[in-house]
């Protein structure tokens, strides 16, 4: 096949084909193509929320599955997330204007003493890719940072990350603080990080331990849909 035949002109594709192509382009981390695709769909009259969910979120969901299954690794996911972010850059102001439905809001950060943030950043990007609003507190957060942000942002989900076995126990300090203030049940608490496991998540009173960024997104979605039903 020559390059000529191989090349795809996005604007000539039908909506359905274009969306599929965008899933592939996200998978391959092709930022310029994602920007172009988003603009074409908007020009064709798609609502920003439809572009977000059907093209970007669905594309990132596929990336998430292959990350979870050990087919893609951090570099590929970062490239995909960067492409997604570029597309989000166009959609974000439009979404705000059109009052699109929200998935939920997460406050996330690494705990006090822990300065390792690659995993946390990945979760943050994948959550945004799934349509969540993310408030990233960065690294080395004492309990009061989380509590303040949760209240101020009216968040639904608290995400805590630790890479070190020495900083893991601090997650319990934060959860205990939430309990002491009587607000523990207002939030879904998700924890993650290389040395953690399910047993640990249970022991400290988190709602769930998430093995990786993809699992974090799935878990957050499950909890949010449960919440909707309960309200």
């Amino acid at each position, binding site marked *: 096949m020559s390059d000529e035949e*191989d090349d795809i002109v996005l604007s000539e594709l039908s909506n359905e084909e274009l969306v599929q192509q965008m899933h*592939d382009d996200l998978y391959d981390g092709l930022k310029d193509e994602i920007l172009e695709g988003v603009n074409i769909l908007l020009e064709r009259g798609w609502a920003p929320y439809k572009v977000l969910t059907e093209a970007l979120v669905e594309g990132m969901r596929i990336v998430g599955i292959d990350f979870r299954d050990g*087919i893609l690794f*951090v570099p590929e996911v970062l490239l995909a997330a960067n492409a997604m972010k570029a597309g989000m850059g166009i959609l974000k102001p439009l979404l705000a204007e059109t009052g699109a439905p929200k998935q939920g809001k997460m406050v996330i950060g690494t705990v006090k003493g822990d300065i390792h943030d690659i995993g946390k950043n990945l979760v943050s990007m994948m959550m945004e890719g799934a349509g969540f609003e993310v408030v990233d507190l960065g690294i080395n957060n004492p309990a009061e940072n989380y509590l303040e942000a949760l209240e101020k942002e009216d968040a639904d989900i608290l995400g805590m990350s630790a890479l070190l076995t020495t900083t893991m126990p601090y997650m319990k300090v934060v959860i205990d603080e939430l309990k002491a203030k009587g607000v523990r049940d207002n939030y879904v608490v998700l924890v993650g990080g290389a040395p953690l496991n399910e047993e640990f998540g249970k022991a400290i009173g988190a709602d769930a331990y998430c093995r990786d960024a993809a699992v974090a997104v799935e878990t957050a979605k499950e909890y949010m849909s449960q919440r909707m039903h309960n309200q």
Partner: protein
Amino acid sequence: MTDRLTRLLETRDWLLLDGATGTNLFAMGLEAGNAPELWNFDFPDRIRALHQGFIDSGSDVILTNSFGGTSYRLKLHDAQGRVHEINKRAAEIAREVADAADREIIVAGSIGPTGELLVPVGPLTHADAVAAFEEQGRALIEGGADVLWAETISSQEEMAAIAEAAANIGATLCATLSFDSAGRTMMGVTSSAYAAMQDTFAAKPLAFGANCGTGASDLLRTVLGLTEAAPDAIVIAKANAGIPKYVDGAIEYDGTPETMAEYATLARDSGARLIGGCCGTRNPHLKAMRAALENHTPGERPSLETIRNALGDFSSQDDGTGDAPTPTRERRSRRRRG
């Protein structure tokens, strides 16, 4: 002149490395969030005690207390301007303890990751990374380290930068990756790919291998992958002492001295010559490993089944090497780039 480690390896089949720096320092009162490297000045006696404990337990190689000693790590403690003095001091303390021992002890200058993502997936350029590692490496050698020892690295780009720094300094390098994601590193590097990579580095490591990661079983599977791909290489195995468990508000590793002893002999049979422990490994573990290695009659390469039965199951079905088909996703015709 060849370095001391090379010379010692000419007379010995295997060497015992040391145990966990972090785990042991926390037991001495280091608090989460504080930089262990600052203890080279604040509590040098405790660092001496750490090294002495390893030597007394049988370690032939000790790592300096400088894992987080690049400017990128130290800046999180506002100590980025102290790279030289901190690393030099780390090496001096280890040298002093090593030289006082009644047998030859190798001082390896520990270098850990910057914690930054390198180009192409992140912002840190190769040149900046090389400069950071060079600054750290020079200070370690100046303080008396025999070799440089990179640990817990996950990306090819970062290891290439460390190797270039070692080449610029003219120092011997030992280099291990952490294979913690389904048998690969976080960045997707497999054991066989890492073995193949060695010739591409500016300074070819004297020894390479795996440290930390998931558990002893996974680490041995990685060692088997490395020794299969590079049968003549000097391979390093430095596994965690089991899996971290949450007990009474603190984290404890569940690996016993007995299981670490078993791991050590299996590592030897898998072809590793430099064998030690990472997180959770304390002096009783090292003593048991030393005794086991001294009494060990070399055996056949263990099968995965043998490893699983001895040390527990693997964290993933395969590790991306060998005949196992690499799963891929069917997609539409791939777009032409550019």
